[in-house]
């Protein structure tokens, strides 16, 4: 898994490429939490359009991002959700818990 962060003022886009599993999710978790805690970001968008697989530890990382955003009245959004990850969020009844948009552009305008 590779992570690429584009930061623009208090808004960041986290682009993930590859599977998010027990091996890679700690890096995603850290990246997202750091953006809120250390960089004071107000808006973090995670682009999952190149992620075909996410397991429960990956879901946990995203949930922690959402929780951290909540504490700081910041926003946390997911974009580009593929079929597999969508099904995992559906099965865990989290599909309506996250703010999800199709593309980065949609999320930026939302």
């Amino acid at each position, binding site marked *: 898994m590779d992570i690429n962060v584009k930061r623009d003022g208090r808004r960041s886009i986290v682009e993930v490429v590859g*599977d998010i*599993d*027990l*091996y890679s999710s700690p890096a995603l978790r850290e990246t997202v939490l750091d953006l809120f805690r250390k960089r004071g970001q107000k808006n973090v968008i995670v682009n999952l359009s190149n992620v075909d*697989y996410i*397991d*429960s*530890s990956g*879901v*946990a*990382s995203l*949930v*922690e991002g*959402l*929780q951290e955003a909540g504490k700081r009245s910041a926003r946390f959004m997911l974009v580009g959700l593929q*079929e*597999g990850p969508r*099904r*995992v969020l559906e*099965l*865990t*009844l*989290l599909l309506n*818990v996250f703010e999800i948009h199709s593309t980065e552009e949609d999320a930026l305008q939302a």
Partner: protein
Amino acid sequence: MPGQVEITIAGHPRWLRLARSAVEGFCAALDVAEQETQSIVVAVDEALSNVMQHAYGGDCSRRVSLSCSARDNELQFEIRDQGVAFNPLDRDVPPPGELRSGGRGLYLMRTIMDRVEYRREGGSNCVRLSKTLDPYVRPAQGEAGKTHGH
């Protein structure tokens, strides 16, 4: 009966992707539908991750094995470790949808698979995940005879 495919990996999460490819390859060889395969891969991956994280507590020198077998229209995946005794069926699974970190692995395993069985066997935990396929999946035909030539 041993599975048609068995894999053993060191208990390090770096090998999870390989294990997922193997499960995917197993399902592909049996013409299991793509969406069904994806779910099965999640369930098996959760079981393996739990062993690495909880049964072995991150000790990557220990080994976990996965046996895949197909019989009639049922796929079985047996995950075996030598870690602390743990019966995944004894554990209450908190409701999903809540905003907590963690605690969704067992839920996914149970929700996706048709049957989860556990036995403790001479120092090993053995978790068997079963899934009945519909429509009828071709079992691994001809595994017992000569069916190919050059």
